[in-house]
């Protein structure tokens, strides 16, 4: 089907062997998730705690009328929870179920386009304790970015 012209930008990126990631900070370290499922990035609105929810759940909030469950990504990954500053942001992501869930992070950095060559998949990482949520490590020019699996993070 060579005649079919690819118009999809993401598809084209994939064909060129690169993927876009949103890089952010948790407990001082760099993390990232695939850009495609991120719907929006916002400053935290008032969040209502949900009694008896799992510890990682901060609460629910309203985004232009849409009810969103907000999770503390630091708690989810069991990393240090420093007090949130004005730079904290909520990443609105689309879970597999279609539900929009919010992930609270310390700070959002930038979008990085990583080539396959700059990514080391988790399976090849030697030693210890690789969390189920880590897909791999990205090394764009000098940085070390932990690539996270959005699907496992927002499920369960």
């Amino acid at each position, binding site marked *: 089907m060579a*005649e*079919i*012209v690819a*118009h999809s930008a993401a598809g084209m990126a994939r064909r060129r062997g690169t993927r876009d990631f949103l890089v952010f900070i948790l407990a001082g370290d760099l993390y990232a998730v695939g850009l495609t499922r991120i719907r929006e990035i916002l400053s935290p609105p008032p969040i209502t705690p949900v009694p008896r929810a799992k510890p990682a759940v901060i609460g629910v909030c309203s985004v232009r009328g849409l009810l969103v469950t907000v999770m503390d990504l630091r708690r989810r990954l069991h990393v240090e929870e420093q007090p949130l500053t004005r730079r904290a942001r909520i990443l609105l992501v689309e879970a597999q179920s279609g539900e929009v869930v919010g992930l609270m992070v310390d700070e959002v950095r930038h979008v990085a386009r990583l080539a396959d060559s700059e990514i080391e998949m988790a399976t090849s990482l030697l030693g210890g304790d690789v969390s189920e949520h880590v897909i791999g490590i990205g090394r764009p020019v000098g940085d070390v970015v932990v690539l996270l699996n959005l699907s496992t993070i927002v499920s369960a």
Partner: protein
Amino acid sequence: MSRILLVEDSFSMRAFVRSALESGDTLFTGVEVVEASSGFDALRLLPRGPYDLVITDINMPDINGLELVRFIRKSDQHKNTKVLLISTQSSDKDRERGMSLGADAYLAKPFSPESLREEARLLLARVTE
């Protein structure tokens, strides 16, 4: 301001075409796109013309694009209307029939937004002369 009637039963296709027509500065006259989702809808909308350009898919259930072309060509009101046929590329027969019925141009799917804009621009340009 050019008036375009877009006849196509697939709504995402309509969105694609509308988007292609409305973006870009090549259609300097500005466009007003009216959508019809079936041949019948087109028949209902045609009397509200005349339209400068009718873009129609060929393969639609009920009244197909070829029948629509013939109908338009019989209409006094639309004697200056240009007709652009769009359809799946595999049918040369459709193309021949369409052109012999009086269509002005034919675009085979899949086409890029640029091709569509270019065709539309060429067809509409004659109108303003």
